[in-house]
């Protein structure tokens, strides 16, 4: 065997040229400096994390308390940490693209290939590895608390889902250091992503990252649906569920039905690329229209998977911070269900120009416009909730107000695009890019930030800094408007999307404005980091001892902050919607149970961690043709899962009733000693998480 053969047996198609972080040394250019710089950021970031963990001797607590934990709150926090890391990369990539296009009249500073990788990773990350983990994290943290449950139905599976999602994200990070990413956009349309046009590793990184995280999201969906069906506290019917739980339910159902579609389109593309099948090739009867159809059967429901939980957050924020019962609960539930249903009937509007008949386009155009109706219902419900409420101008409310105005604008441009005749004019232009950023940033991202701010004290026991929260919010809002409104203009003028340079001088000024917006968005991102730092430093001033810093209305606020791992000392019996608000109004917000019982909790497990590590190596082996690594990783994953299935949970724990009683009584005693804070002092250090009784809406 020659050394060449040995090399390819061990390392597949990996060679020194694939190492991006060395490029700046042997082929220096502005483009490669950026490429290598990004790779070095990833490497140094990883080294820094390892060093910090070692210095602070945090390895053991990290494994014991977090990575092997099946506590839904910790898994939720880990999801959100993952989302935040990916958010940083996604935003910075967007900023580099804005800078490139601001300089685009003279050609800019990036190579076309690099620009292609940027928009591909940016889209993939923001949808699948930022928004998805963020909302999955929020649902994980909040839903079991809102429905009065101990945990999700399948805690181990929850950890496995996180493992697969992390593996997908890890592959995308690795692509920055070793090899390159696809240049085929986040949708990865073949035949361009087929092996004829991109024989390298780029599309394979995309494929395996998407497949791994897709499996994770499908399992998550199953877990949430069963949790919401089966774990609700006694007495809580479907129409007593908090609105966020309703949106979580619809999102989870959509995950179960939508994620398999992207698994199928990706699996078919894998067969095309690896085994020479002809699902989507140009020659021998491949049909790339099938890809567009199957992908968007996932892709369109996906945007509602993202936005529905954000709608749920806005519903909670609107009623809590105006001190009013949520207006039009029934209509909000119906609207959520209708949106979930309609979202599966509009996928074709993503390719009106593909050549199907005008009648088909008209049918899908009408279905698309119909979605505006339930969405409009929701906007009116939120406005009516705020109407004559005692609104407090907190950070979540700022995001809510910005959302309501900007989202309506984005929705209107969506109605324009839903008309096939208009769509033909602006298809694949920056007008479309402006439209979906206008939906996803105010709609999803602001909602996630609002939820992050709103529920942060519940998990960590102190509130986030208000001043830096506002600075961040205003930077995000103004930055969004400056960065994306100009794109409507250049898009309508005919500038195509995914284009790095242009020859039309009239475009330039708009890209300069968008560049300023991008700078503000960067400032927003930095402000979020500063906010977290300042909040941790000043946590004694914002301590949430009582567990109810916002005069909350739903069950999660009836627990201590931070929430004990068993959530509720005793599972409550629910008598009404917005149960905690009614209880407080009746002066019975903190009842003491007559008796306590032992609590069974699932034990920690390594299964999720094994999925994360060997999921990553499985993907890596498949991408680089290291077949031994792929086979080994697959075997480890299979044996681990089968072993767990056979042996079950070997370390279940029981928390004795006496211990639960002692902790709960101590908390009740602390609460009784707390001064109750009126809403006027909500943002001051006087707010210790105990809400003073105020005007409450008592109408049934």
């Amino acid at each position, binding site marked *: 065997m020659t050394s060449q053969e040995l090399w390819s047996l061990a390392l597949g198609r990996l060679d020194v040229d694939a190492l991006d972080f060395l490029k700046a040394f042997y082929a220096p250019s502005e483009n490669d400096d950026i490429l290598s710089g990004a790779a070095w950021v990833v490497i140094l970031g990883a080294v820094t994390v390892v060093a910090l963990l070692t210095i602070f001797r945090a390895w053991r607590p990290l494994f014991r308390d977090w990575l092997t934990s099946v506590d839904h709150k910790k898994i939720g926090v880990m999801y959100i940490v993952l989302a935040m890391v990916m958010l940083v990369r996604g935003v910075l990539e967007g900023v580099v693209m804005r800078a490139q296009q601001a300089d685009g009249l003279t050609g800019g500073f990036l190579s076309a290939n690099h620009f292609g990788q940027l928009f591909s990773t940016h889209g993939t990350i923001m949808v699948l590895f930022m928004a998805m983990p963020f909302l999955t994290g929020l649902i994980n943290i909040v839903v079991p608390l809102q429905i009065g449950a101990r945990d999700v139905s399948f805690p181990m599976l929850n950890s496995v889902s996180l493992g697969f999602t992390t593996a997908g994200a890890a592959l995308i990070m690795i692509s920055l250091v070793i090899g390159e990413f696809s240049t085929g956009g986040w949708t990865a349309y073949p035949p361009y992503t087929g092996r004829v046009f991109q024989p390298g590793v780029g599309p394979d990184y995309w494929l395996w990252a998407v497949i791994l995280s897709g499996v994770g999201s499908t399992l998550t969906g199953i877990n949430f649906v069963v949790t919401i069906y089966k774990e609700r506290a006694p007495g809580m019917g479907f129409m007593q569920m908090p609105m966020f739980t309703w949106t979580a339910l619809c999102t989870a159902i959509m995950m*179960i039905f939508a994620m398999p579609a992207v698994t*199928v389109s990706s699996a078919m593309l894998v067969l095309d690329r690896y085994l020479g099948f002809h699902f989507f090739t140009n020659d021998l009867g491949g049909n790339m229209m*099938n890809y567009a159809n199957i992908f968007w059967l996932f892709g369109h429901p996906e945007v509602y998977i993202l936005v529905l939980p954000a709608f749920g957050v806005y519903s909670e924020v609107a009623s809590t911070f105006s001190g009013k019962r949520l207006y039009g609960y029934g209509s909000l539930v119906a609207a959520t269900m209708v949106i979930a249903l309609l979202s599966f009937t509009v996928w074709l509007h993503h390719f009106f120009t593909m050549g199907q008949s005008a009648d088909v386009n008209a049918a899908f155009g009408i279905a698309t416009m119909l979605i505006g109706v339930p969405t409009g219902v929701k906007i009116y419900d939120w406005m009516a909730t705020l109407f004559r409420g005692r609104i407090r101008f907190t950070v979540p409310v700022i995001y809510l107000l910005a959302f309501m105005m900007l989202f309506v604008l984005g929705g209107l441009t969506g109605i324009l695009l839903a008309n096939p005749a208009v769509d033909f004019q602006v298809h694949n232009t920056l007008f479309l890019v402006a439209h979906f950023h206008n939906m996803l940033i105010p709609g999803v991202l602001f909602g996630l930030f609002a939820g992050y701010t709103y529920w942060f004290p519940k998990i960590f026991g102190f509130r986030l800094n208000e001043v830096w929260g506002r600075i961040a919010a205003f930077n995000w809002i103004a930055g969004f408007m400056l960065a994306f409104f100009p794109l409507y203009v250049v898009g309508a003028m005919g500038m195509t999307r995914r284009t790095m340079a242009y020859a039309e001088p009239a475009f330039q000024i708009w890209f300069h404005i968008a560049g300023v917006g991008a700078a503000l968005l960067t400032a927003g991102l930095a402000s979020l980091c500063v906010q977290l730092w300042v909040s941790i430093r000043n946590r004694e001033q914002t301590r949430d001892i009582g567990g109810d810093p916002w005069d909350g209305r739903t069950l999660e606020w009836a627990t201590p902050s931070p929430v004990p791992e068993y959530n509720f000392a005793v599972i409550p019996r629910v008598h*009404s919607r917005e149960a*905690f608000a009614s209880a407080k109004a009746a002066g019975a917000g903190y009842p003491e*149970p007559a008796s306590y019982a032992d609590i069974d909790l699932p034990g920690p497990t390594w299964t999720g961690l094994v999925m994360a590590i060997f999921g990553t190596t499985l993907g890596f082996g498949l991408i680089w043709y290291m077949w031994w690594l792929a086979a080994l990783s697959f075997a480890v994953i299979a044996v681990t899962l*089968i072993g767990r299935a056979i042996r079950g949970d070997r370390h279940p724990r029981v928390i004795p009733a006496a211990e639960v009683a002692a902790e709960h009584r101590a908390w009740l005693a602390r609460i009784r000693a707390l001064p109750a804070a009126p809403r006027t002092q909500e943002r001051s250090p006087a707010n210790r998480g105990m809400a003073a009784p105020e005007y409450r809406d008592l109408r049934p």
Partner: protein
Amino acid sequence: MSDIAQTGFSFDATPTMHNDDPGKAISGFWLFMMSDLIIFSLFFATYATMLTPMSIAGGPGPKDILELRSAAFETGALLTSTFTFGLASLAIAHGRGRAQAMGWLLVTLALGLVFLGLEGREFARLLDIGAVPQRSGYLSALWGLVPLHGLHVTAGVIWLTILLVQMGTQGVTGRVRAGAARLALFWHFLDLIWIGIFSVVYLGGLA
């Protein structure tokens, strides 16, 4: 507690323990099968769209390569196996003893292996006559759909083997019973999918 609706929530005098509803796992498994059904439907839809002359691309079409004989035997084996699994489920449900349940499960396993053997022989024949997936879009769709079902049956066979080992060593415990209930669902589900494949690919293709 004059008006119970206004108290929002309360604690029962004797609190509920952890929710150990065995229905949870079955519900979750139903949902998993629904998502799996989406995967199969999309492969079916792709197969249907690739029956066109464009996708056959001058290569062999269904009439040139498919044979009803082998598929009929495969169908017979799989349909019988779903019946014998049903008998095993009845034996478990009515407490007819471990031997009877394991006996029927062993017959099911054998029939599953017969199915896989026949299907493997069919695949080998297709490869032999040059009906390889690399030849055309139509053949890609065929090789996407039918082996996907075969892979599922393989997973079912592995699962059934593990279940038999568990049953042999631990007896018919609650855990084994729950596993058998889920596997039964899976097995019957695969049978339904096969009826789809037999109708669409074989009967439809040869009609």
